[in-house]
C-alpha cells in the first residue's frame, strides 16, 4: 500500500466534464478517490500533500500514435527511452504502432510488449496490432487472438491498405470484435515518389509533390466502407483542408467515425522545410498555412477528435540525406504538450478543447478508464505550469533519437510533475 496523495490548491482542468476550477484531488491505491472542487477535503492520515500553487492539474495525456524502435531498432528508441520521454512530456499512456521488426501482427508479440513495457516504461504502453500480416496489405491478422492478448486497436501504422476489398473485409471483421480500426488514408500511387506537399514551394525546391487528393480520396473511401461495415473507424491522421469537410459530412451520418491529427500539422506548415530540412519531412506532409488553419478550425468544432505526437524516432544516418532520400518522421513525445500550448497562448484554441483531444477523446475511442479526473479512474495526472519558458535543445531530449521538428524552439508551458497510477514518475527540476 502506498501513501495516499493529496494535490491541493490546483486548477483542476478535466475536459471529460468541462471542469476548470480550483480544487483538490485525492489519490489512493493508484486511483482517484476524491475530487473536491467546492470545499476542503479530508486529509487521510499519513498522506503526502502537494500544494499545486494554482498550477493546472489535468489528466495525463494519451498519445494515440507513437513509433518505438523496440523490437528491432533499439538504437533509435526503446520502450524504456520512449516511456521516459513520454512522462517528461506529460504523456501517461501511448499507443505503440506495430511498425517494428518483427511487425506486431501476432498475439505473442503483443503479450511480450505488454510485459516488457510494464517492467521498463514509466508510461503505460498500449500496443496496437497490425491489420495485415507484416503490414503488407495482403492478409488479415488474427484480430480475435490479438485482442485477447491485449492489443488496444488495429492499425497498419505508417502503411495504408490499398485494396478496397481487403479493407472492407478487415473493417467488417474488426467490427465483429468491436475494436477501433485506425487507418492512415494515403493513396500509394498518388503519393508516388512525392516527398512534400504538392505546390509552388515543392516546385521551387525541385521536389516531387504529394497532392492533397492522395489523402482525400482514400479518406472518402474509408468512410464509406466504415458506414457499410459499422466499424469504429478512426482516420489515423489528416492534413488537408478538404479532409475536414469530408469528415464533417461523414460524422453527420455516422457517429462511429473519428479523426486524429499530428501536432505537427497543427503547428507547422510546408514553409518550415526551408532549404531541405529533413526533420520536417513527415507523413502526411506538412501542408500549406490555409490547410493548417482549416485543421485548427476542425479541431475547434470537434471534427478532429484527437491530437497525437506522431513520435517517430529516426537516426541521423537516415535523416542527414538529400531531402528526397531521407526518412520521414520526427520525434514528438517531449514537445506534444508544449507545442499544443502554443495554440492556446496564440488564442487559436482554448485549453479545455486542446486537452480534450489528448485526454478524454482518445480514452473514449480506445475504451480506456483513464483520460479523466473522476472518482475511481486511474490516477494518471499531470501538473502543468502553463507559462514556464524553456527551449528544446539537443541536450534536453530524453528520446534516443534527435530528429525533432522543434529543434531549438522556444516553448511556453511545461509539465512539472507526471503521475502514473498514483506514483510520481517525473518531476521537473530546474537544475
Amino acid at each position, binding site marked *: 500500500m502506498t501513501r495516499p496523495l493529496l494535490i491541493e490548491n490546483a486548477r483542476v482542468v478535466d475536459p471529460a466534464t468541462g471542469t476548470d476550477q480550483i480544487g483538490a484531488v485525492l489519490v489512493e491505491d493508484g486511483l482517484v478517490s476524491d475530487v473536491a472542487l467546492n470545499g476542503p477535503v479530508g486529509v487521510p492520515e499519513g498522506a503526502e500533500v502537494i500544494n499545486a500553487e494554482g498550477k493546472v492539474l489535468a489528466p495525463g495525456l494519451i498519445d494515440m500514435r507513437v513509433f518505438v524502435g523496440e523490437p528491432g531498432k533499439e538504437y533509435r528508441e526503446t520502450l524504456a527511452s520512449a516511456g521516459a520521454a513520454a512522462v517528461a512530456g506529460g504523456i501517461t499512456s501511448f499507443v505503440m504502432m506495430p511498425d517494428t521488426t518483427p511487425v506486431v501482427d501476432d498475439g505473442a508479440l503483443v503479450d511480450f510488449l505488454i510485459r516488457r513495457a510494464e517492467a521498463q516504461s514509466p508510461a503505460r504502453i498500449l500496443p496496437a496490432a497490425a491489420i495485415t500480416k507484416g503490414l503488407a496489405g495482403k492478409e488479415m491478422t488474427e484480430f480475435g487472438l490479438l485482442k485477447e492478448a491485449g492489443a488496444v486497436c488495429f492499425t497498419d501504422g505508417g502503411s495504408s491498405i490499398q485494396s478496397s476489398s481487403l479493407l472492407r473485409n478487415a473493417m467488417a471483421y474488426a467490427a465483429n470484435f468491436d475494436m477501433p480500426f485506425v487507418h492512415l488514408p494515403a493513396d500509394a500511387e498518388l503519393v508516388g515518389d512525392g516527398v512534400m506537399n*504538392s*505546390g*509552388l*514551394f*515543392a*516546385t*521551387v*525546391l*525541385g*521536389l*516531387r*509533390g504529394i*497532392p492533397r487528393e492522395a489523402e482525400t480520396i482514400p479518406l472518402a473511401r474509408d468512410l464509406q466502407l466504415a458506414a457499410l461495415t459499422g466499424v469504429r473507424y478512426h482516420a489515423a491522421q489528416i492534413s488537408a483542408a478538404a479532409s475536414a469537410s469530408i469528415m464533417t459530412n461523414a460524422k453527420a451520418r455516422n457517429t462511429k467515425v473519428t479523426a486524429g491529427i499530428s501536432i505537427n500539422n497543427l503547428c507547422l506548415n510546408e514553409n518550415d522545410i526551408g*532549404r*531541405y530540412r529533413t526533420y520536417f519531412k513527415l507523413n502526411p506532409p506538412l501542408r500549406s498555412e490555409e490547410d493548417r488553419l482549416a485543421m485548427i478550425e476542425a479541431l475547434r468544432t470537434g471534427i478532429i477528435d484527437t491530437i497525437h505526437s506522431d513520435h517517430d524516432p529516426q537516426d541521423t*544516418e537516415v535523416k*542527414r*540525406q*538529400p*531531402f*528526397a*532520400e*531521407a526518412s520521414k518522421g520526427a520525434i514528438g513525445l517531449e514537445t506534444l504538450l508544449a507545442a499544443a500550448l502554443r495554440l492556446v497562448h496564440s488564442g487559436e484554441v482554448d485549453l479545455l478543447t486542446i486537452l480534450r483531444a489528448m485526454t478524454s477523446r482518445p480514452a473514449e475511442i480506445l475504451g480506456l478508464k483513464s483520460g479523466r479526473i473522476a472518482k475511481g479512474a486511474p490516477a494518471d495526472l499531470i501538473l502543468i505550469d502553463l507559462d514556464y519558458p524553456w527551449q528544446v535543445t539537443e541536450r534536453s531530449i530524453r528520446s534516443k533519437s534527435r530528429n525533432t521538428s522543434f529543434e531549438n524552439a522556444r516553448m511556453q508551458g511545461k509539465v512539472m510533475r507526471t503521475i502514473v497510477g498514483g506514483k510520481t514518475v517525473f518531476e521537473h527540476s530546474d537544475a
Partner: protein
Amino acid sequence: MPQVTSSGRAGDFPPFQQRHLISIADLQQHEIVDLLDRAEQMISVSRQERKSLATLAGKTQINLFFEPSTRTQSSFEIAGKRLGAMVVNMSVKTSSVTKGETLIDTAATLNAMRPDVLIVRHSAAGAVELLAQKVGCSVVNAGDGAHEHPTQALLDALTIRNHKGTLAGLTVAICGDIANSRVARSNLLLLGALNVRTRVIAPKTLLPAGIENLATEVFTDMEEGLRGVDVVMMLRLQHERANGKMIPSVREYYRFYGLDEAKLSHAKPDAIVMHPGPMNRGVEIDPAIADSERSVITDQVEMGVAVRMAVLDALLAARNEQ
C-alpha cells in the same frame, strides 16, 4: 557574333562575395551581372591561341559527378584547366539505396584531400547544398535533381546577351519538360532577377504544381506561347516520360510540342533557338531547325566554358580575399 564588351581586364572586378554557387536564388542582380561580365572576359581567353591563364595555378578542382554528364563535366574540366587549376574527375556510381550515405562519406573523404573547389552533380534536389555544409571549400552546383543548374542559366543568359546585345525588354519562352527541369528553374530565377519576361510552354502533365504563381506566363499551346518571343529555349524530353503515363508517345509530343518551322514562325523573325543539350532530334526539335542559322546551340557550349571559368575565378578569388 557581336564583339565582347570592353569592361576591362579580369581583376577589375570587385571581390565576389559568395563562397558557393548553389542556386541562382542566392544571387543578387548585381552579382549575376558581375558573373556575366567576368564571363565576357573569358570568351576572349578561350579564343586566343594560347588559351591559358594562371589565375588558379596551384588550386585543386574536383569534379564530383554522382550522375554522369560528359558535356557538363568536360566544360568544367576545360574551364578549370584554362585557369591553371589541377582538375580531378570523379564519377561516383551509386545504387539508389546508398546514394545519400555515399554523399556524406564522399564529402568527408574529399574534404580531407583539401580541394579548393568541388563541382558537384547529384540526382537529388538539395544534395549539393547538403554536401556544401560538410566541406571547407567552395562548391559549385553542376545540377541537383530538378532543383537548379545555375551555370546553365548563366551561360544561357550570356548567349542571349551576346546575340541580342541586351537582355532588357526581351521575352523568353521555355518549352518542354518544365516539371522535371533544373534548367528551367534556374533560368526562370535568373531571367526574373534581370527583369526579362518569361513564358513556359508544356502539356499540363509536364508543368509543376503552382508554376502559375511564379512570375512567368504559362501556356499549354505552343503556337500561342511562341507568339512574338525573342528567344525559344527548348528542353530535352526524357524518353521515359513518353511511355503513356505522362505523354502518350513521342510522335504525339513532337506534333504538339516539338519545335518545327510552323511553330517557330509565330516567334519574332529574328528569334534565336536554344537547347541545353543533349538534343533529341525529331522529339523536341526538328533537325533542320537545330542546324539552322537561328540555332545558337553551339554558342551555348562555348559560353558554357566562359561562364564556368568566370565562376571559378570569382569564387576562388573571393576565397583569396578571406
